[in-house]
């Protein structure tokens, strides 16, 4: 019975944890996209902001791949910020795997150069 009940318990805990991380990362991507629009693209301030926000939601920034497209955004053009993290999921007696958690958000350039 342990072989059945333990994976059940771990499935609830692991996927709940994964969902929490996913939504937290989504929130950071959304705010980062807005900030990228304000800054006019990929700037050191944006990278620092993303790292700070990730730490605040309990995600180690060094594990997150950050992409900003385009690096230089014109006024009223879209800018996308994407975050990607590999998360390890372990269900005892069933399987262990790595899932890639992706978040992205699109905002608009607000700098009229």
């Amino acid at each position, binding site marked *: 019975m342990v072989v059945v009940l333990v994976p059940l318990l771990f499935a609830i805990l692991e996927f709940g944890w994964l969902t929490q991380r996913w939504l937290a990362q989504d929130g950071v991507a959304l705010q980062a996209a807005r900030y990228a*629009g304000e800054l006019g693209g990929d700037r050191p301030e944006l990278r620092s902001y993303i790292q700070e926000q990730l730490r605040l939601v309990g995600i180690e920034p060094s594990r997150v791949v950050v992409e900003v497209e385009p690096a230089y955004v014109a006024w009223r053009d879209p800018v996308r910020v994407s975050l990607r993290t590999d998360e390890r999921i372990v269900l005892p007696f069933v399987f262990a795997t790595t899932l890639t958690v992706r978040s992205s958000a699109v905002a608009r350039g607000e700098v009229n150069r």
Partner: protein
Amino acid sequence: MTHDEGGTAAVTTLVMLPLLLSVLVGVLELGALRAVAYRAAAAADLATIVAVGDQDQSELARTGALRLPEDAADTARDYFARNLSGSAPALAVGADAIAASADVASFPTAPSLDPRTGARYDRPTLRLIAAVPVRTPGFALLLLPAVTTVTIRSASSPR
């Protein structure tokens, strides 16, 4: 535990297993549905914020007053679709179709009254209401609807 008690526990677990699995499937599906609803709401929020981030430039230069541009609603719809597309695998219809059918209303000047929600806006406002159909295969296993529609609302004003 004696041999008989061990057997009883095994039989009880086997009898309860369908119920446990049903609860597990229901909990996971409900969690997934809430996650998609959260992402859709965030997409709507970002879309309306982006749309009100721009102003009618001629009005701003002429009077200094904030007034939404004529294309604010189209901008919100466009960015709603762009941000919703990240949840596309979980949606029963395409992000573009959901955005196209969303009720997006622009209230370029203030004060104004939203005839649909009854809300009164003291600033220029963009309001978006969308019905987002989400795939819920776990619910279908429990003989519940395979598609659950989530209604999201968002309104933003420039400051």
